[in-house]
């Protein structure tokens, strides 16, 4: 079952604008990650935010986490055509009876940045 759900499903903006994508999840987490996927193949890790963090930055990326609302947002500032891709959030879920974890992904947001 899907733990994270991204919103919106698709987003189209002009180059230079900011893009905001949201992720909601259902159960308690240890961390939340954002990934990017081009052309339907391998995903690339963008940023990880831990449950005790509220905000994190990496270059033009800004991620926030609100554990009380079980939600996260990914902001891409000054977008470029090359940012066109699908963006996924992923959350870890503790395995029952053990200390191992597995990552589950949402369905993603398709971002299109028009030149």
């Amino acid at each position, binding site marked *: 079952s*899907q733990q994270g759900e991204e919103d919106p499903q698709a987003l189209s903006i002009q180059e230079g604008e900011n893009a905001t994508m949201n992720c909601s999840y259902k159960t308690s987490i*240890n*961390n939340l*990650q954002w*990934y990017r996927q081009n052309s*339907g*193949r*391998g*995903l*690339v*890790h963008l940023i*990880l935010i831990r449950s005790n963090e509220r905000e994190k930055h990496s270059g033009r990326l800004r991620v926030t986490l609100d554990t009380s609302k079980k939600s996260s947002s990914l902001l891409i500032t000054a977008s470029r055509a090359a940012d066109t891709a699908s963006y*996924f959030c*992923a959350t*870890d879920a503790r*395995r029952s009876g*053990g*200390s*191992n*974890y*597995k*990552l*589950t*992904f*949402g*369905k*993603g947001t398709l971002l299109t940045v028009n030149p």
Partner: protein
Amino acid sequence: GAGVSQSPSNKVTEKGKDVELRCDPISGHTALYWYRQSLGQGLEFLIYFQGNSAPDKSGLPSDRFSAERTGGSVSTLTIQRTQQEDSAVYLCASSLDRGGEKLFFGSGTQLSVL
């Protein structure tokens, strides 16, 4: 190797045939995942290996699907008696330590069942 390697990159098979998909994780990574992604959809978790622990098989969609990881390294995902609904991109990922940390993905295997 430098990254996660998957083979073949593309596989076309006939309905009813068996297929084997291979994943070679980054050396030293103890956690290995298999995911499936249908066209335009999110990632569907299939199976997770962590070190010498029993794998988490909770995502395998049917008993036609199985996976093994030999020597804590290379993994093979086997689909028996393939069906058209098995057509998808199969993605493998590994991480350095326990699961839940940053994943490194392979480029996937595009499986087409005719």
